[in-house]
């Protein structure tokens, strides 16, 4: 177990280094001079040169990379060139709302998807099964922004009962709870279909297994066979698959945040890129990438905990 975890960690380190290198090179390929930017357009050549010294821009590239890593390790990601706010501070402000949104989406989408998938598998081939599968293929094909804009039109304009711009408050207050409904329905909505499909496949596999037939032969009730003998085994691979795709949920979060002006890290990243705020763009991309690596690592290790067969591999 420990060995598996360590192995994974060793594999992750070069990837993290790669992400940092790409982040670093991002600043190099861009034609703007960071010293000039920091000094301002009216600065004299001497001042620019002084700043260049201070930032270590005259050093060879590999030394600059080391400086950059050590600054990063101290939590210094630079300052936004738009509003002079430290990048780390902005990241700290936006990461919470993004996690909040992802949580609020998964908390209903996963159970619903699992339920639909199980029902579909149990009544396979029936009209109900086909309807569920049709809806889930539709869900996979639906642009996130279409769902979001549709919900805004319906519940923000036609029947104006829910807020749809920005985060209206902390999640534990009534206002905050109301405000997260539409974004969470949007982001979770595109996740239901894949979860239902995965669950259906897994449950179908399990329903044909020997131990399930044995359970039936023993004369156990249908409900008990389904819940205790089928679902319990079927859901382990589904949970892992979902874990691996939580990273991809963040991609949807970027669009959802933009549609609903949700103050999350995805919207911050897009805004930074569109306004050419390079330090901010770099910071958001690095943090998002490291986030993905960590999520994958966690799921990988958890998988080994849940399924001993993986450990040897």
């Amino acid at each position, binding site marked *: 177990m420990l060995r598996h975890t360590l192995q994974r960690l060793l594999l992750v380190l070069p990837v993290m280094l790669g992400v940092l290198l790409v982040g670093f090179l991002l600043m190099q390929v861009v034609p703007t001079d960071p010293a000039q930017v920091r000094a301002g357009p009216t600065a004299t050549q001497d001042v620019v040169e002084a700043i260049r010294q201070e930032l270590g821009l005259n050093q060879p590239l590999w030394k600059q990379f080391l400086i950059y890593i050590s600054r990063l390790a101290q939590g210094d990601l630079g300052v936004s060139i738009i509003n002079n706010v430290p990048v780390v501070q902005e990241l700290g402000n936006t990461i919470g709302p993004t996690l909040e949104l992802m949580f609020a989406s998964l908390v209903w989408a996963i159970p619903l998807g699992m339920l639909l998938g199980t029902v579909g598998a149990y009544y396979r081939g029936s009209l109900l099964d086909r309807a569920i599968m049709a809806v889930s293929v539709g869900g996979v094909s639906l642009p996130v922004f279409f769902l979001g804009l549709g919900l805004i039109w319906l519940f923000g304009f036609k029947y104006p009962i829910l807020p749809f711009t920005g985060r209206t408050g902390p999640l534990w207050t009534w206002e905050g709870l109301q405000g997260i409904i539409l974004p969470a329905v949007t982001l979770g909505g595109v996740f239901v279909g894949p979860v239902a499909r995965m669950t259906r496949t897994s449950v179908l596999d399990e329903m044909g297994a020997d131990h399930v037939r044995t359970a039936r032969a023993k004369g156990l009730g249908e409900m008990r066979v389904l819940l205790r003998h089928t679902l319990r085994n079927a859901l382990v691979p589904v949970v892992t698959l979902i874990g691996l795709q939580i990273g991809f949920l963040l991609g949807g979060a*970027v669009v959802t945040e933009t549609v609903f002006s949700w103050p999350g890290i995805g919207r911050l990243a897009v805004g930074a890129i569109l306004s050419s705020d390079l330090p901010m763009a770099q910071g958001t991309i690095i943090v998002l990438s490291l986030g993905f690596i960590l999520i994958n690592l966690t799921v990988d290790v958890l998988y080994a905990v849940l399924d001993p067969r993986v450990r040897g591999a």
Partner: protein
Amino acid sequence: MSAIPDPLATSLPAVGTVRRVSVLRMLLSDTGACIALVLVLLAILGGVFAPWLAPTDPYANDLANTLKAPGDFGWLGTDGQGRAMATRLLYGLRTTLMMGFASVAIGGAIGGFVGFMAAFYPSLSGILMRLMDVLLSFPAILFGLAIAAIFGPGLTAVIIALAIATVPLMARVVRGSALVILQQGYIEAARSLGLRDRHIILRYVLPNCLSAIFVFVTLRFGQVILLGAALSFLGLGAQAPTAELGAMAADGRNFLFFAPHVSVLPSLVIFAVVLAFNVLGDGLRDALDPKLRK
């Protein structure tokens, strides 16, 4: 986002020779897949012949007739600058399909090459597939953000990002099916005849992997269009005044409450096209591998 890769999409048909006639017959017996096929063909024709089909100039403003509802003015109404929606949709479809085609073609070619190399030369396999795993651990949207940050937003950035995101998926599909083919007796025969590696790959392995590749490409095309439209919606893709479906939907946000058609129509077109590719891909997979039909 529907960047969520459907795990079923990777369970590709067993490789091997399938009689083409029976595949076609099975596909045609699947009503959903038939409708999807027609839709896909219509979309492609619409995109290719947009300059001939479009009733008006896609960039001609008519500020006296902005935001007209469908049926009211022109065929499908006008957008915020008085440009005919019907024209914009056709050109938007053209841009979106071209973007999807370019990224799948580039990413698929590179990924296919990597996949064949990894399957054919086991010594390369470890490092190549590890590299693919790394690429696979990042979602396409993140590549989109990073590339747009480096090169600036634009269609090229989106195409590069989606191509990169397609490489590892294609490599896996190709390697998986090529490994099965390489086990076959005729490969051993070809090898013992002293044929060159390149000849064996191109003449014997590649043709037998085509069905798996075809299913993958069809499903991937739908996903890529969805991702590309999302990136354009965010403003990272096609820039105004270029007509692109995702960018058009974003443009319509400003008029959502009094002229919803400006957003809804392009979104609907994206939905229909992606759905058609997904259903067609599923149908193809079922037809190519009857074992999956339970």
